[in-house]
């Protein structure tokens, strides 16, 4: 499905602030994989997702999707294959436009924009149905500006938008990190539901270890731009937070120094 071969990325090359964000990272996702990605600050989790999405180019290595080399494809062209939800609830939606206009734009992901109407009648019925599944009452507010919604509502909407056209890979970049715990739980449950229902292949970056264990069929721990370990199947199901910390110690020889990750 998605294959990364020896991908690397360095920021601020040849300056004092040089930062090797990813070092010869290879990864292969099978269809239907739901991978959770954890790691401390600066581990390269977001960089990994951004490289897959094409936000910035790789310094080396290649990215393949369904047997096609997409390494040199610009972000807007890769968008036809990828659904994305960002950490910042403001990023995934256009606040000055209403709910149905946002959905309509997501519905046309990867298609050329023509001079046909931006939102059609038939679509409205579809959006209403999809929104009602979220259970947030948004189906009755389709002409409200998205800017009036709460962060949680915006993230739920972005999630729906990212999956409105079935993506080959769904990329979730700490998409619940900016929400309060209760809303985060709701959005996560919603995420899991959609991924199962639509049989999506997904990568979810999170800083919350228990979430990383609770969701998905595979877990990747990153550190300093590399994958420390990659656990899947039955082994992941049996894993506990303590096991994760122990494994990190074993591989790295140091304890995890990230409060944010430990406390959550």
């Amino acid at each position: 499905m998605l294959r990364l071969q020896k991908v690397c990325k360095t920021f601020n090359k040849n300056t004092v602030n040089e930062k090797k964000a990813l070092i010869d990272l290879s990864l292969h996702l099978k269809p239907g994989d739901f991978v959770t990605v954890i790691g401390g600050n600066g581990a390269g989790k977001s960089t990994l997702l951004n490289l897959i999405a094409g936000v910035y180019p790789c310094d080396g290595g290649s990215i393949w999707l369904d047997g096609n080399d997409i390494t040199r494809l610009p972000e807007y062209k890769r968008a036809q294959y990828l659904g994305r939800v960002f950490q910042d609830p403001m990023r995934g939606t256009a606040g000055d436009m209403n709910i149905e206009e946002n959905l309509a734009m997501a519905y046309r992901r990867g298609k050329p924009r023509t001079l046909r109407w931006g939102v059609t009648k038939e679509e409205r019925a579809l959006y209403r149905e999809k929104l009602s599944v979220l259970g947030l009452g948004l189906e009755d507010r389709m002409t409200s500006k998205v800017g009036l919604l709460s962060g949680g509502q915006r993230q739920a909407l972005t999630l729906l938008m990212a999956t409105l056209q079935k993506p080959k890979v769904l990329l979730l970049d700490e998409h619940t990190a900016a929400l309060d715990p209760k809303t985060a739980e709701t959005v996560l449950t919603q995420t899991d539901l959609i991924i199962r229902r639509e049989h999506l292949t997904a990568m979810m970056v999170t800083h919350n270890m228990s979430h990383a264990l609770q969701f998905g069929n595979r877990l990747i721990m990153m550190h300093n731009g590399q994958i420390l370990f990659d656990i899947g199947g039955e082994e992941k199901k049996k894993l506990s937070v303590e096991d994760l910390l122990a494994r990190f110690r074993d591989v790295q020889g140091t304890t995890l120094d990230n409060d944010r990750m430990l406390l959550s």
Partner: protein
Amino acid sequence: MFLAFTGTVHSAIAQGVIWSIMTLGVYITFRILDFADLTVDSSFTTGAAVSAMLVAHGGWNPFLALFGALAAGMVCGFITGFLNTKMKIPGILAGILTMTALYSINIRIMGDSSMVPLNGVDTADVLVREVIPGISAANCQLLIGGVVTAIVIAFLYWFFGTELGCAIRATGNNPYMVRSLGVHTDNTTMVALVLSNGLVALSGGIFAQMQGSASVDMGTGTIVIGLASVIIGEVVLGRHVGFLPRLLCMVLGSVIYRIVIAVVLFLGLKSTDMKLITAIIVAIALFLPTGKRKVQAWNDRRKAMRQPVLVPDRAVEDSIDGSDKDPDEANQKE
């Protein structure tokens, strides 16, 4: 005295309607695309120059010449768009570069002269007067400007409802999202700039014919006039109205601006003072959102100070500190 004044207002309204096409262009870049495009200072003149030359020396039908002006303006917008998106020059600078370059181009268009007179040439208003004899100059301008403006508004209302139009609106709102949904923001930026400058040049083209001449400096200050009109229009009807009323507001803003200028001139200021007054209006209008927050913060602070002291002194200090922080937090959220 009163008659002279109503006459002034009458022609101010007619002028406002013609300039409202320019205001609609500025609205597209400034509000929809969130791009302060200085190209308009020169593309207005380019439209005027092309329209005047085509009528005076090309023998074109004056209405057809307006299409020439529109096309010329679109090319100007394309150049700014190219500088900004493909050469990654910041928006304001890209506009300034095109604006500066166009000064030379405009003089070339006008046959190496800084002015094209249209005396005795069949301009659009001359043709209209032949059809409707006895129509006053102001009404004639109002008619031509009104018809073109109505067509432009109908077009814009349709266009920004299409898939492409929606993508442009979203580009000004959240380019990250637009790219993640598979739209090339370079293209949407370019289309918006092309459209905007086309309208500005069209406005310039009409204005040149109505005024009876085109000159190289007639576009100076266009951006500020456009911004002033946009802001006045928004103040009149508020920003939270539908798209069609908002477009109509732009016409209203442009007309009100002209009336204000006419009144100020009538009261004895020089016409050369207008740019100063316009700049002051825009500066105040742009300051308003910040000003409101400051006044709010000041009021909150005063309220907090006036609160009866029922609690120990330290708690009062805390509450004052707390209210001090509020406005800053509000700023950060935005």
